[in-house]
């Protein structure tokens, strides 16, 4: 029995049990990770899971059931159970559920991959982490950590509307960090970010990072931070590096434009959104420099795919156009409820989890400036980069982020190193204060986006470049 056959059997069983719509995803995922500390391997882990997840609609109620049994009996049981759960849902029913139309598609898609990450010898991958963390440790890091992660996912999707799509997505990434322990606090520097840089690419991505070349630098910078002055508590001009901008976009734009949050579907856990659908198309989100794209088609970015987990093809569309809010991340059901004409942003963390609205690649279109130009044109301010902590309220308005490193800016030049840099603000006020944006865009990957109950971990991408913001409160501390 092929995986398409199993998915088809599950859908047929759900329909026979009374579902008015059903879809099934068979998934086979292999993952691998390795971590090293101070020149020694800390952990090597490989996981493999496979199973089928079936979604059924009965009246206005949804049901989802997942099991690892991929034979005909298991698949049919999954379909029947999903339909039964949907009937239970209908006992606490809402408005009639509709689904945005999605033309039936038969297709295959694969992410670009030059070097299969699972084909690279463990010993070679281990040598990279051992060598780089060993060098960082020798250069002064009390704790030099290195990490790589690999995911290899195959999906077979079938719907009762005729979709039949298989995809093969390979993702990987790596990074190192150096932590120094002081009398009363710790300091950390990382490359290229704390958990590393990730993409839907092969091992060539990790090779391109040249991690070993940065091992000594991060250790020395972490050590220097221990004795650096504290970031002052003040309101000033703030320039953010590209990696921190990726986090800023993720938290204060990406989650805010999720349609399920806007509709209240995540009210009890992840939260809602400050955005009001009635203002879609007119609300001023940020300055004219702020154009945000939802683009799952970027080759090699971590949030890319051929089709989402509802069988909707990947299409790029704007979320914020020259400062005006114009788009959302949506699925077929949420789009139908909201009267929006597109979905395409629904994914699940594996076969055993319900597909839900997730970010794809949500990023800033490049600006006209460079980081050097921004610094040169700033008389007084602070430059911060690489995220260290992040917190934002349940409406995605009030944020407070901490960075690994800060630098004073005086007279158009970088000055003293600053430790414990933090900044805080309110999303739309902050974005409206952005007056310079760099063209130096990198599609950063975020492999740890949590959402949903049971909790799901999503992989998202964020094209981002350095940017400058005015009148920002920095240096918040306890």
């Amino acid at each position: 029995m092929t995986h398409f056959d199993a998915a088809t059997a599950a859908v047929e069983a759900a329909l026979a049990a009374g579902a008015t719509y059903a879809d099934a995803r068979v998934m086979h995922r292999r993952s691998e990770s390795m971590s090293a500390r101070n020149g020694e391997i800390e952990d090597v882990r490989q996981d493999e899971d496979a199973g089928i997840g079936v979604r059924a609609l009965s009246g206005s109620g949804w049901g989802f059931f997942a099991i690892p049994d991929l034979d005909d009996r298991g698949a049919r049981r999954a379909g029947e159970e999903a339909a039964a759960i949907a009937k239970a849902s209908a006992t606490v029913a809402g408005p009639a559920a509709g689904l945005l139309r999605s033309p039936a598609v038969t297709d295959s898609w694969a992410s670009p991959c030059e070097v299969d990450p699972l084909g690279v010898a463990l010993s070679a991958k281990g040598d990279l982490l051992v060598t780089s963390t060993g060098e960082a440790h020798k250069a002064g890091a009390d704790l030099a950590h290195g990490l790589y992660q690999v995911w290899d996912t195959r999906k077979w999707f079938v719907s009762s509307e005729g979709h039949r799509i298989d995809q093969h997505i390979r993702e990987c990434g790596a990074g190192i960090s150096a932590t120094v322990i002081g009398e009363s606090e710790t300091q950390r520097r990382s490359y290229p970010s704390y958990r590393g840089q990730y993409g839907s690419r092969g091992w060539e991505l990790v090779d391109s990072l040249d991690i070993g070349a940065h091992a000594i630098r991060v250790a020395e910078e972490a050590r220097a931070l221990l004795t650096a002055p504290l970031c002052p508590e003040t309101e000033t001009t703030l320039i953010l590096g590209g990696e921190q901008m990726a986090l800023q976009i993720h938290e204060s734009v990406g989650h805010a434009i999720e349609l399920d949050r806007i509709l209240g579907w995540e009210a009890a856990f992840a939260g809602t959104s400050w955005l009001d659908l009635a203002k879609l198309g007119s609300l001023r989100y940020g300055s004219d420099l702020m154009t945000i794209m939802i683009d799952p088609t970027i080759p090699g970015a971590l949030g890319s795919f051929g089709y989402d987990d509802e069988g909707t093809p990947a299409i790029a569309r704007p979320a914020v156009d020259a400062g005006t809010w114009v788009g959302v991340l949506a699925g077929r059901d949420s789009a139908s409820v909201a009267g929006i004409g597109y979905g395409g942003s629904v994914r699940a963390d594996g076969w055993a989890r319900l597909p839900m609205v997730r970010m794809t690649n949500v990023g800033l279109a490049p600006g006209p400036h460079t980081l050097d130009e921004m610094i040169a044109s700033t008389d007084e301010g602070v430059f911060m980069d690489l995220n260290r902590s992040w917190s934002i309220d349940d409406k995605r308005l009030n944020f407070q982020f901490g960075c690994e490193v800060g630098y004073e800016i005086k007279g158009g030049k970088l000055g003293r190193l600053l430790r414990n840099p933090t900044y805080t603000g309110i999303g739309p006020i902050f974005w409206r204060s952005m007056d310079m944006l760099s063209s130096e865009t990198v599609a950063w990957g975020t492999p740890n986006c949590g959402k949903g109950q049971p909790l799901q971990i999503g992989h998202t991408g964020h094209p981002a470049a350095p940017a400058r913001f005015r009148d920002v409160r920095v240096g918040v501390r306890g």
Partner: protein
Amino acid sequence: MTGMTGGIDLAAQVLDLVRAQCGAGTEAEVVVTAEDQALTRFANSFIHQNMRDVLTTVRLRLHVDGRTAGNSITVSGPESLAALVERTVTASRLAPVDPGWPGLTPPSTVADSAGADPATAQASPAERAARVRAFVDAAGGLEAAGYCRTTTWRVAFANSAGQSCSGSATEAAMDGIARTGSSDGLARFASTRLADLDGSALGARARAKAAAGADPVELAPGRYQVVLEPTAVADLLMTLGAHGFNGKAYAERRSFAVLGEQQFDPAVTLLDNPLSAGGGGGSGLMFDAEGTPKHRLGLVVDGVTTSVAHDRRTAAQAGTASTGHSVGSSPFGPIPANLYLRPRTAADLGAPTEVAGPAADSAVAALVADVDHGLLVTDNWYTRVLDPRTMVVTGLTRNGVWLIEQGEVTKPVANLRFTQSYVSALRPGSVLGIGTAAVGLASPYPGISIEAPALRLASWNYTGGASG
């Protein structure tokens, strides 16, 4: 896997396959976890997501010729076990040398696990939906959102050193809010039995809190005395547990913990308790992912830090014994997952009662009565550690904050952002009162449980309003 015997058999099969491939001298451990999780989720007062997954996972860890590798697989047949062993053996031969390998858990006696509550293990979608119906109805027309969850674990462990054990447990949890146009009111509870979840009582509490929180006023940032309800205390405990009482963080000197030092107020006694007395939905399993027996572990006793959680690797680094807190292969390290903060006195363990107004129960209301000027806080949200040594944390209030004046709740307050050291908040002299009952609370993560009373603390540093 249909039962614990089946799990032990599966683990034994895997060990046999390892011996056949690598010889009798190979060190191997196997964990078989059968999980049945169902979660009925509601929003806008109707069920919008409703799921169940049933799966068995086998995790194998091998140490061969000084090299270690771990692998896991979802079980779909005998051939999947053979593939697991073959892949792990291959990986272990290619893996870099592991000089920190701590060895396997030797044969040792494991206490009985909690056992699965049959009614919870067999709960139907209709039973969960009925509790959602009761919550929604009790919300009295306010918009309601949340979930009802049941989880069953059957876990078996075996290693090549001769350790073998198994156990099962169930958890049932309900967590929901009622919403006005300007406020959310929270009710949260967990137990080992679905029968203990009263959707109607929880919905009524959420409604009362939401109604009392409507039209909140902005309050100036600053330091306030606070009464933290058990739902907010849970965040303190989980954060301290994950970052401070974590044996890896301790070994790496990232933890604030100093063993033997009076770091907390004498009123603070914090335990890790796998068999939670109050039914907080603890893991209920008396062994960890390395087969090490679990016991009740005192982390803080009368304000003195006494222990941190260890697995075999961090224990070896610290020159001590594992406390049974391995979570399997994880770079995060061992954490205490079943935290219990002792309420005021053992004699006061009677169940608190529902009260009028925003306080969650009579135990919270009693602490409020002692506050001259301060805040009543339902919940903390999106808390992140700025530095693990100082345990300075930033986050926000959520689901209801009220001003307390002269022992009375006087007005609802809009959400606030805080930047506060959690260790300093509990330092000697800072705990002005502890509730009389530890409440079992749902965690976002099954298997992680909290039982906490309310706390009255001398000072909490609010650094801004959530709206600007």
